[in-house]
């Protein structure tokens, strides 16, 4: 049962296998109200898979997922929309939940795309579409927000503003956020908990702890870890090029 009322979603040793290949395995993490948990890791390390496990999109998983909220907002990494369907930004905002016009306008203003409200979704640029996706996810005032590389394709100044917005939303709505991001600066400054993935959990903890971790350095390079620290300690395994674990 849910002993801690702040827990929104909890993964216990969760994994997912697709045609005999593990996409990710042995992931345990907890997202609580008002907290930002960030997943980092190289391409193909199972970040999106972990997010989809947490969302319940993948059904036949190993381990367990406990989900304590149904108010979920999701910004997927890849979204392909079929243009046989005529759909405006306004219709898209109402896709999964009926929300008031004022809430739609507010969310679109926050992400800076209110002027696109009546535009056809197919006519937007990549960055504009990404802003609409974020607006749609936050407009329903979710308890759990899952953001899979939410600022991809957004211009540099917009990127910073959107990350500030995400941080603000976590504070004002008191919602839990599961974030996948490549922006290590954002990860280090705004995140409460970092999980570093490479097919499994390499290391996790506060941003500071993770930055000190040697596996993190091995994955992201010395420079990335110099953002916060030069602390070093001994680690017990390394990764081959295929991502397999080799004990030292």
């Amino acid at each position, binding site marked *: 049962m849910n002993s801690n009322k702040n827990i929104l979603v909890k993964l216990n040793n969760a994994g997912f296998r697709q045609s005999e290949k593990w996409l990710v395995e042995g992931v345990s993490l907890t997202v609580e109200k008002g907290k930002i948990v960030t997943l980092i890791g190289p391409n193909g390390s199972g970040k999106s898979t972990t997010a989809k496990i947490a969302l319940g*999109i993948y059904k036949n998983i190993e381990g367990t997922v406990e989900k304590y909220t149904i108010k*979920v907002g999701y910004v*997927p990494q890849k979204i392909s929309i079929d243009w046989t369907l005529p*759909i405006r930004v*306004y219709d*898209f905002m109402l*896709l999964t939940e009926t929300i008031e016009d004022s809430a739609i306008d507010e969310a679109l203003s926050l992400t800076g795309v209110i002027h696109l409200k009546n535009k056809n979704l197919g006519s937007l640029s990549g960055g504009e579409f990404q802003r609409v996706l974020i607006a749609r996810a936050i407009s329903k005032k979710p308890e759990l927000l899952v953001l899979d590389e939410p600022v991809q394709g957004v211009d540099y100044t917009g990127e910073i503003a959107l990350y500030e917005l995400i941080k603000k939303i976590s504070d004002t709505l008191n919602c839990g956020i599961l974030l996948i991001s490549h922006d290590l600066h954002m990860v280090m400054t705004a995140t409460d908990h970092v999980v570093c993935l490479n097919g499994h959990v390499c290391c996790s903890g506060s941003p500071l702890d993770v930055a000190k971790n040697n596996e993190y350095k091995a994955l992201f390079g010395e420079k990335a870890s110099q953002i916060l620290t030069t602390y070093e300690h001994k680690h017990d395994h390394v990764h081959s090029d295929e991502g397999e674990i080799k004990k030292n």
Partner: protein
Amino acid sequence: MFDDFFIRALVAGIGIAFVTGPLGCFVVWRRLSYFGDTLAHSALLGVTMAYTFDLNIAISVFLISSIIALILIQLQKKTNLPGDALLGLLAHSSLAVGLVVIGFLTFIRFDIMGLLFGDILAVTTDDLLVIWTGGALILIVLKLIWKPLLASTVNYELAEAEGLNPDRAKAIFTILMAAVIAISIKMVGLLLITGMLIIPAAMARNISDSPQKMVLFSIIGGLLSVILGLYSSLEFNTSSGPSIIAAALILFILSLFKIKQSIKLKN
């Protein structure tokens, strides 16, 4: 009022257009036109069952089409054949089996042309009851699953992640497809039902900018096609199905001019 066969056909056709309009939009959006064809072809088997066991044609067709849809889902899970091959297999084999069974039923005189292309003389007062109550039920259910169905049409994972249960909506929609074929088979004929579903919807796509508008224009297009088609069917003594579909085609061609205009405006 319903004594006149033409009035009955008109009332039946209008009822059908109200249902095929919105369902047709989903058929276009979800790329299900070949799936619709398969269900429609299997309807012939349903009709022969109805004659053999003296059942209501609409109910019998509905049952057989639903069974074919279930078989399709099972085959998709259990074989490695591509979807279109499975659809073709089911469409043509159920059509063939239906025709073979008709060959055995020598004690009944079949109007094959009427079955394939629709027959306005065949519409009875009972059929009107089936079409309008069945149609109303289909629309109510579609209204109930509208949000999850539309959301999963746009993006399945988004709908699943945000708790809309898209799989259930899809299963219910499959049943609605079988139902719409069941109520429209007498009027439009089993070879042309898919046309009644997709041509007004395709016309509506050319002149709409939102899902709701497309549904509305698709209904209007269907209604106009039925009215125009039936009057010309009476005038020229042609089958009702082809006349309705030909009218729908004319509306579609007219809608292309609207696209041309909007492209010109953009440039």
